[in-house]
């Protein structure tokens, strides 16, 4: 029995927490009352600084054992030490659901709440985006984004749910990058992710990665997008209420 209207779900979200030993315990006071504020907590990638197993244990300690389910995607920092399998296992052992071009459906007071998640990647947006052309490295860069976007869109569309949320690390639209230097937009997100979000009846898209960006935007298909990078929202998490 939640304190918000029947048929609605409250989603807490935060990205780019960059945990390590020096930050351990810093979020816990704000997470103590999370059960009275939200049905689920989404972590939008860059959970750590270097992606080590030790840092993953910090994430497990900080965000494990909460009053609500925790669903995460990884970010570029979490890949830095090439220990992704170990990293994911440590989080999963702590009860945190980790998505990568996959989805999960939670029962939130009788509402089927679906989340599809993916790290995403770069490539840029209309008028300033890369394409699969030229050197093998350039083709591989864009191909990586395209493959993620295709799988992510399929995972989003396959969710059997009442409310549908897309969780990413990289940005699906340029509007939530406002404040970042335009020159680095191709490293912050891709329109291919936006197309994936718009390929399903999505109620909300959440991402991080752009520390100097803006919180709010909308995809060309009308899906609300929120950049929840910690330096953007400047608090332990944001809460969004979605209704069936």
């Amino acid at each position, binding site marked *: 029995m939640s304190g918000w209207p029947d048929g609605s779900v409250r989603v807490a979200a935060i990205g780019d927490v960059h945990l390590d030993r020096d930050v351990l315990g810093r979020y816990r006071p704000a997470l103590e009352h999370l059960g009275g504020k939200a049905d689920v907590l989404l972590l939008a990638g860059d959970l750590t600084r270097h992606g080590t197993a030790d840092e993953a244990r910090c994430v497990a300690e900080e965000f494990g054992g909460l009053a609500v389910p925790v669903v995460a995607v990884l970010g570029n920092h979490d890949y830095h030490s090439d220990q992704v399998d170990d990293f994911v296992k440590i989080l999963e052992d702590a009860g945190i659901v980790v998505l990568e071009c996959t989805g999960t459906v939670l029962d939130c007071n009788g509402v089927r709440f679906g989340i599809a998640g993916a790290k995403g990647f770069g490539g840029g947006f209309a008028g300033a985006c890369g394409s699969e052309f030229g050197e093998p490295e350039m083709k591989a860069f864009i191909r990586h984004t395209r493959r993620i976007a295709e799988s992510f869109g399929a995972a989003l569309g396959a969710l059997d749910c009442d409310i549908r949320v897309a969780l990413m690390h990289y940005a699906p639209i340029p509007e939530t990058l406002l404040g970042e230097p335009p020159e680095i937009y191709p490293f912050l997100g891709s329109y291919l992710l936006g197309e994936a979000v718009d390929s399903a009846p999505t109620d909300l898209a959440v991402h991080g990665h752009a520390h100097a960006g803006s919180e709010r935007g909308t995809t060309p298909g009308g899906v609300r997008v929120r950049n929840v990078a910690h330096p953007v929202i400047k608090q*332990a998490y944001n809460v969004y209420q979605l209704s069936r």
Partner: protein
Amino acid sequence: MSGMNEGYTESHLQQVLAEDYRTAELGIRAIRLEAGGYALCGEVESHQRRALIEQVVAESFPDLDVRWDIAVTRVHEPDEVEEL
């Protein structure tokens, strides 16, 4: 980094802050000041990380005049809900 062409200072600053294992910061911006030197701006997760950034920059750019505008991001509970 002493003796390098000053036109590359901003690029080298960003590279050092990202690639030095002690900092691993991609979100710190270096802004060239008219009066000379640079302002380093952004947010980090702890006071320790801010101190490490200052240490790494001082090691790599001992002669650089830097104004420090790096904050530690707050972690208080939200008191608002956005209804969508």
